[in-house]
């Protein structure tokens, strides 16, 4: 069975920013979180998948189909939510739906109505009169109503209240239960991913840091806390990122077992959260 998404050596050069040689795969029936600080290239990757940007190199395959050569077929199987809603603001939700729905063979009108009701979206209101969170909900309702095989969400939880965020994550988990639907979503809110993601892809300054199963990452990566006397040059090189404090330091490693062997009882070694990984790697790059 083809992967939902196969990205190989994807490159895009803006001049002042370069997405460089990014490769990762998303198996069917899984959720992948795309993380990274601002400007890491998350939106660029999503736009390249949707062919909104012209790639300079590499390939993107969706269910084994090239996203440029089979553009219409590929997009027919994708449900998307962009980071900023890109609908005509002065139109009613039902009118916007009327422009989008005919493009999809599997459009499910009862499901769309049900989602509008569940999300408390008034169908006859214009988009301009909705808050950012409500606009995001509307984009989600459109994305979920044509039974897409791949849902791509760019920062879907930003602007959403915690209650709805929780509901959304539950819904995404529910979607993949058929083992056919896959979800790729970028976010800054890494705690969301720890709850639902199967895979994490981390981008930093346009490069891929890792793309691995979440559980592997959380098992392998660790934060080491120890006194400053242990922060020798050799130990510093061992870490992917270091934060020095008055009486000690904290360092991020991608090899928890090696850290245990190296520091033994002299340090406290804790599992790294995704936010720790993002923080230390971004900080490490700044200090380099």
């Amino acid at each position, binding site marked *: 069975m083809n992967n939902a998404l196969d990205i190989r050596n994807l490159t895009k050069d803006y001049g002042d920013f370069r997405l460089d040689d990014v490769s990762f795969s998303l198996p069917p029936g899984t959720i992948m979180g795309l993380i990274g600080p601002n400007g890491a290239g998350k939106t660029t990757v999503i736009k390249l998948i949707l062919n909104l940007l012209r790639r300079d190199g590499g390939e993107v395959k969706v269910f084994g189909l090239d996203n440029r050569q089979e553009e219409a077929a590929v997009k027919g199987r994708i449900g998307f939510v962009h980071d900023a809603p890109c609908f*005509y603001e002065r139109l009613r939700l039902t*009118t916007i739906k009327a422009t*989008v729905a005919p493009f999809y063979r599997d459009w499910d009108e009862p499901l769309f109505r049900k989602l509008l009701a569940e999300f408390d979206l008034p169908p006859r209101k214009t988009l301009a009169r909705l808050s950012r969170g409500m606009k995001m909900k509307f984009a989600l309702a459109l994305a979920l109503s044509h039974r897409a095989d791949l849902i791509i969400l760019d920062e879907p939880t930003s602007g959403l209240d915690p209650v709805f965020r929780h509901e959304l994550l539950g819904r995404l988990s529910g979607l993949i239960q058929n083992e056919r639907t896959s979800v790729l979503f970028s976010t800054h809110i890494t705690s969301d991913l720890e709850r639902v993601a199967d895979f994490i892809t981390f981008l930093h300054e346009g490069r891929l840091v890792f793309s691995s199963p979440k559980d592997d990452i959380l098992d392998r990566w660790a934060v080491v806390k120890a006194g400053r006397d242990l922060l020798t040059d050799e130990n510093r090189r061992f870490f992917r990122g270091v934060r020095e404090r008055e009486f000690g330091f904290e360092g991020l490693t991608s090899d928890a077992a090696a850290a245990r062997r190296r520091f033994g009882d002299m340090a406290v070694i804790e599992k790294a959260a995704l936010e720790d990984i993002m923080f230390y790697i971004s900080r490490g790059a700044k200090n380099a």
Partner: protein
Amino acid sequence: MRNLILKDLILNKKFLIGIGLFYVPYMAYFGSRINNPRLAIAIGAFLTALAPLMTITREEKFKAAQLSCSLPATRKQIVQARYVLGWLTMTGLYALIAPAMVLFPGSKLSWMSVAGGKAVLTALAFLTLFFGALMPLMIRFGLVGMFSFLIGMQLLGIILMVLRTQGISLINIKGFIAGIRNALLSLNESLGAPGYFVALLAVLILVNLASLTLSVALFRRKDL
């Protein structure tokens, strides 16, 4: 294609109705004040060609091109749909403007002068000229690009005229304008001949196809 045309039509319905409500009385009045049908056709064609171009500026304003290009359609299909809708809009508007110019009280224009075969072909030629030239610019550079081009052309004309008053003549402006006038006059006279009629129609179709091909190529290269 059908879905794309319907989408653009729904999204721009109110705008197009508004444009129609403004253009028809305006052109009816304008037509009644002059007795030069070719000028009426040229101005009418220019205004009419602007209407479909303005729908793209609305898409730009709402950044809705991202939406169009995320839907299951190729960029080629999106541009093709815009050309089809553009021509539907322009012919629809011209079909409203032409009788309005004739029927407006005090109008000196006859039916044949704005709605006869020769007049319609002239209108098509002007529409092709404006729409075919401006559409690729609009698609690649947006409203700013289109107006920059139009203003640039005006500035170029002004500079050439100023240079001429200073005794510097890069091109013969009088001769250039006379050439255009003569070309239009001979075109008008030759339109009676069926062969010429067919040949001109073929040229207009080719120009539109060339414009469409260029627009598709430009839109494919555009990052959204």
